């Protein structure tokens, strides 16, 4: 028998998509039966009360959570989000319901030994409910009480060799696509770069001293599966500099219908016979390709959009001189509207120990920590103080690739040292040439 009747939530148990309501109910029942006789350190009926308070929100169409700021583990400024229910008497199991962010492994690969370890700790010390994963990338443990926070941290670090993720005005938990581990398009080792920078910048991740949040995301190629240039302040996107590698025999195999185009991605509808001219040559955004039995690419005019490679992955490969582009400044809409990241470094080789990339990062941080206003993302600092300033502090030479088009107003701010003779002028000298 359920602790709280949930007639509205029950309607989310049917239908084909996995029902979170059924899942929470199964956890509630499991905790109530407690077959392993666990001495739960957080309220046993956490999941049941969560369903109860959620049902109330479904009925009233208003949330019942309050924020609380002073919870965390000693010495860290992030990784824990304080949460309290505004109906603690009715739902005591979730009166305190803090979130713990666990730094996920790069690529979100797991072994069951590790995951079972997380589950055991979280069943004992928390609600038994998680987010796999949070929006930034962390493995999120959803709901525990204040006295358990240090215990969870101690268990995570000692038993599972795992640290917390970020929250607040710090480096947020970095995330990456699966990259070279299982993808032929990836132009660098996203996992290694993500893991290395996460470890190199632990102090920035745990002890907030930035004006606001700062996110790293790593995409292996311009297909951008991890959405780096929309979701991160510092977006690293794999790319290449030389020619797309073509296997003409395999191009012919696609044209002849031997290979499935698009790796089979459009197999669910009859789009007709594969037509290389219509589907590849004419869809190329720069029109730099031609086909006369053999495929030709004018690589100097290619913008590496990936379309032709996506359509014929067995015939075409990214170039051999691989690396990444770095873009800066994506953010959600508040306040002046959403921003995507803007190109800062057109090409950087991505090689251990990543000194060149770290230099860009640290120059940006030094500048933003000095100049950024409270609660200002670096994308806003860039806008306020100019892209030129960003180039100056990162020692990057302006190139035409930085812009989609040059400015259309002539309100150019020159530095005094750029102007012959400087700005200090003698009025008497002027008057010799011009009457008053």
């Amino acid at each position, binding site marked *: 028998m359920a602790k709280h009747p949930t007639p509205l*939530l029950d309607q989310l*148990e049917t239908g*084909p*998509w*996995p029902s*979170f309501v*059924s*899942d929470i109910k*199964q956890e509630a029942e499991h905790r109530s039966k407690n077959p392993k006789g666990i001495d739960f350190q957080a309220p046993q009926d956490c999941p049941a009360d969560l369903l109860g308070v959620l049902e109330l929100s479904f009925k*009233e*169409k*208003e*949330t019942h*959570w309050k*924020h609380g700021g002073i919870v965390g583990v*000693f*010495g860290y400024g992030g990784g824990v989000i304080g949460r309290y229910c505004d109906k603690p008497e009715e739902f005591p199991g979730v009166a305190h319901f803090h979130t713990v962010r666990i730094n*996920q492994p790069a690529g*979100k*690969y797991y*072994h*069951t030994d*590790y*995951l*079972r370890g997380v589950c055991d700790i979280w069943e004992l010390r928390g609600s038994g*409910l998680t987010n*796999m994963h949070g929006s930034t990338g962390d493995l999120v443990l*959803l709901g525990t009480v204040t006295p358990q926070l240090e*215990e969870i*941290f101690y268990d995570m670090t000692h038993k*599972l060799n795992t*640290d917390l993720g970020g929250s607040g005005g710090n480096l947020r938990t970095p995330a990456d*696509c*699966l990259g*070279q*581990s299982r*993808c032929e398009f*990836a132009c660098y*080792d996203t996992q290694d770069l993500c*893991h290395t920078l996460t470890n190199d910048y632990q102090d920035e*991740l745990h002890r907030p001293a930035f004006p606001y949040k700062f996110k790293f995301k790593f995409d292996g190629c311009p*297909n*951008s599966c991890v959405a*780096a*240039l*929309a979701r991160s302040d510092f977006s690293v996107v794999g790319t290449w500099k030389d020619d797309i590698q073509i296997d003409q025999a395999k191009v012919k195999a696609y044209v002849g219908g031997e290979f499935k185009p698009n*790796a*089979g*991605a459009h*197999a*669910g*509808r009859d*789009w007709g016979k594969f037509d290389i001219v219509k589907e590849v040559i004419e869809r190329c955004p720069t029109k730099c390709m031609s086909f006369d039995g053999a495929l030709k690419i004018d690589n100097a005019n290619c913008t590496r*959009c990936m379309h032709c490679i996506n359509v014929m992955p*067995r015939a075409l490969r990214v170039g051999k001189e691989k690396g990444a582009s770095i873009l800066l400044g994506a953010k*959600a809409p*508040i*306040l002046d*509207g959403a921003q*995507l990241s803007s190109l800062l470094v057109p090409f950087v080789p991505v090689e251990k120990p990543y000194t060149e990339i770290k230099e860009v990062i640290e120059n940006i941080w030094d500048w933003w920590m000095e100049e950024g206003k409270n609660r200002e993302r670096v994308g806003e600092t860039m806008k306020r103080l100019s892209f030129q300033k960003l180039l100056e502090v990162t020692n990057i030479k302006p190139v035409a690739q930085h812009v989609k088009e040059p400015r259309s107003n002539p309100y150019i701010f020159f530095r005094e040292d750029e102007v012959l003779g400087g700005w200090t002028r003698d009025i008497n000298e002027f008057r010799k040439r011009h009457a008053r």
Partner: protein
Amino acid sequence: MAFISSGYNPEKPMEGRITDIGPRSFEDFYPPVIKRNKGKWDYHEILEPGILVHVAENGEKCFTVRCGAARLMSVSLIREACDIADKHCGGHLRWTTRNNIEFMVENEAAMKSLVADLKDRKFAGGSNKFPIGGTGAAISNMIHTQGWVHCHTPAMDASGPVKAVMDEVFDYFQSMKLPAPIRLALACCLNMCGAVHASDIGIVGIHRKPPIVDNEVLDNVCEIPLAVAACPTGAIKPTKTDFDGKKINSVSVNEDRCMYCGNCYTMCPALPLADYQGDGCVIMVGGKVSNRISMPKLAKVVVAYIPNEPPRWPTLTKAIKHIIEVYSKNAKKYERVGEWAERIGWEKFFELTGLEFTHHLIDDFRDPAYYTWRQSTQFKF
């Protein structure tokens, strides 16, 4: 309950403390076939919706079965996923950026027995635990935020509407018949944890009423300078007000400047925002992050307000499905929703979808607004 210590000593927090160790290394978790062939993959194919094979240069294969999952997940369900991974995959599994679970095996026979195992697993209520799909020209899993499950500023729930929408479009999750992939996302307020602003179709919760000032307790529970500083539009000012015949310190809200973001409520619990009549969501359309064919673009608001209709948000789910169907019928192969709308023109998008164009859809917020108006006589009647 007897307190079970982890070994942590609250008297001496630094004793035996381990900090700054970061996440576990991915090297600990790679399946062997991944470890052996990292950086040496030759090509991949989608065998059927949700099932991929990656072939290495040496001919070795990695079969991946992708399963949709709710991102809110119990330890019981994670353990079940672990059981499956132990039985079929040598204990290895991974999650995708979009909350899917991927199980990997090394040969076709193992893949088939894995698929057979996954297909039969259902929750007590009847829904699938591990539905297979989400590859290619399909609708993949929807990324979303916390909603009424855990957040203090949501204008809508997240898990509930996501379940309702995914039920409605489930056919597109398990097939690959769309012109191009559609990425769906939901953010339960305009702070937008997650990349809703660059999704093909995004749902964003919005409040429409300024916070209520709880004068009686405000000065006791908040630091007024923090509440004032929290407001991105400068709508909150410190003030003295009469309460119960006494002059007390409080704040006033300039209602015309308020954008209902809830940042003040985060800093000050005496400024509650949620309202059952005011809250609801907008639908945004046409964003993309991939650089494929066209450059990444932000999504645009095409429906300015839909009220909250728990438990299944019928108006919202119907509108989403309708947009998907009109797109699917009219777009060319490879065209993402935003590319299609731009090719035909947004005026045609509204004509074809039958969505009403209202004054709320014209940008009037600061500088970017002008660039969205039409400085041309080129348009379609």
